């Protein structure tokens, strides 16, 4: 069932002025409940503008965006939409407001007017979901970057959203923080939360089940990661590159190695190469 329906979305910043910039130029997309989608594209391709339309932080110049059937231009529906679609941003230090972790997570549901007993349950569930329950009484500013981002995600989860929009949430994290956050996101998606991950990391995009590549405010490529990464020529024209593993598989294919175009992960490539190596060894014995 579609959770988000975008039809012919255009967004123009500073319309009718000499500084007018067309950020989105006719985007049509449907995202189903439970999907895990990555949105990639060069700087200035419209990714963040698109994200801000998903919870009515921005409204279409023309076209429409519907969340769970609700039109984002309907002012009466804005809070219902924001409850359904939660956003997490790049900088973990700009998103935490309270002095204690659990108060931070309670902030959203308090604003929604949720009864206190219910809030306590939601905070506990949300912190458990991101594996941060032991830190509930800690001060957010003393946490690591990955921990802060997980608390920010918990704050969104406490609103019981249907969809999580992540805008470059791992960019500022160290390798461990990045692993923690990606693992958390993968688990949340497995439990039914729709995830839209906006990222510059092609390695991260490979973890999604669908990749949407934007260029100049339009959808340039769309499909399962393997299908999108098979179009290396088009991606390069957009200023993007293949993730390391598919890029290596491609270079080896160009050398004549019979490697499948669907190779995405290190495990895939190791599997394929160890089969080739074993076959080569047998061939050598003949």
């Amino acid at each position, binding site marked *: 069932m579609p959770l988000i329906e975008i039809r012919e979305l255009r967004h123009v910043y500073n319309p009718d002025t000499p500084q007018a910039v067309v950020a989105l130029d006719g985007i049509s997309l449907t995202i189903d409940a439970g999907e895990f989608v990555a949105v990639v594209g060069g*700087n200035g391709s419209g990714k963040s503008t698109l994200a801000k339309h998903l919870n009515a932080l921005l409204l279409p110049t023309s076209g429409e965006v519907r969340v769970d059937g609700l039109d984002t231009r309907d002012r009466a529906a804005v809070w219902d939409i924001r409850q359904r679609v939660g956003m997490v941003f790049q900088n973990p230090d700009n998103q935490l407001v309270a002095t204690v972790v659990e108060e931070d997570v309670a902030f959203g549901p308090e604003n929604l007017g949720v009864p206190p007993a219910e809030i306590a349950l939601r905070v506990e569930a949300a912190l458990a979901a991101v594996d941060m329950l032991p830190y509930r009484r800690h001060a957010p500013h003393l946490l690591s970057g990955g921990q802060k981002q997980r608390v920010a995600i918990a704050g969104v989860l406490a609103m019981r959203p249907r969809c999580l929009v992540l805008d470059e949430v791992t960019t500022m*994290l*160290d390798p461990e923080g990045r692993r923690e956050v990606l693992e958390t996101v993968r688990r949340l998606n497995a439990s039914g939360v729709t995830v839209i991950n906006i990222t*510059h990391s092609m390695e991260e995009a490979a973890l999604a089940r669908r990749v949407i590549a934007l260029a100049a405010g339009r959808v340039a490529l769309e499909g399962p990661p393997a299908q999108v990464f098979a179009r290396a020529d088009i991606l390069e024209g957009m200023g993007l590159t293949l993730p390391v593993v598919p890029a*290596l598989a491609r*270079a080896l294919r160009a*050398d004549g190695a019979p490697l499948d175009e669907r190779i995405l992960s290190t495990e895939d490539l190791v599997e394929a190469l160890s089969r080739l190596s074993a076959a080569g060894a047998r061939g050598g014995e003949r």
Partner: protein
Amino acid sequence: MAFIEVDGLTHIYLRGTPMETTAVRDVTLRIDEGEFIALIGPTGSGKSTLVQHFNALLKPTAGTVRVAGQDLVDPKTDLRAVRHRVGLLFQYPEYQLFEETVDEDVAFGPRNMGLPEEEVKARVRGALHAVGLDPAVFGPRSPFTLSGGEMRRVATAGVLAMQPKVLVLDEPAAGLDPRGKAEILGEIRSLHDRGGITVVLITHSMDEAAALAARVVVMDQGRIVMDGPTREVFGREDELTAIGLGVPEVTALARALRSRGVPVRPDVFTFEEAHVAIREALGWS
């Protein structure tokens, strides 16, 4: 004599308060002219605190820092001169752009150095060229009309215009798309290779560190825990993983292949090395 000499450096924030934090503990380090060093470590390991001592933005709680032989805590040392020789570019330097035009922004540093206006203009042109921006096109533009990658390059030009001997960069490629990332890192590499500038690159990307640096310094909990040639440091995968770091993706791939009986050489750290090593292992070379 090393260009930067750090001896027994300790830095404690908010000393004597309940918030007291020791960010750097007893660090000793030598940086020679012309080196390209990657400084890696988990968030909060003390990397940024350490480099802010290189141009006296922070003062040691204990220990000494010398730049070109001059002790930075000695009141006779001209700190302005030191800051012209050691350029620091913080994370997200585009937030530090504030002038009306790109030219003015890049001119800010050299003008503060008291250089004659002709020299300032020449340096601005040179610095913009060095970061791959055409001065005639970008010079008159407002910094706020630029893309993220372009802003990052303008900020880099602002530091380069001071013609520092040492360039310290904190995550210069974070938040850029793959093309912007490749461009800025390519420019840093050529400033080092052609311009002879000493580079200290702080990064969370093991791939970036392996591709660019000859030496890797690893910090954890305020201490330097590893320091050596890039290939040697990335050969210590278990220790790196234990502190929350890792090895370049292709290094992990090579290890996984060996464990499956594919005879790939172990010292594989860059994309090209991996490509060649796999061809060799499969007998295609």
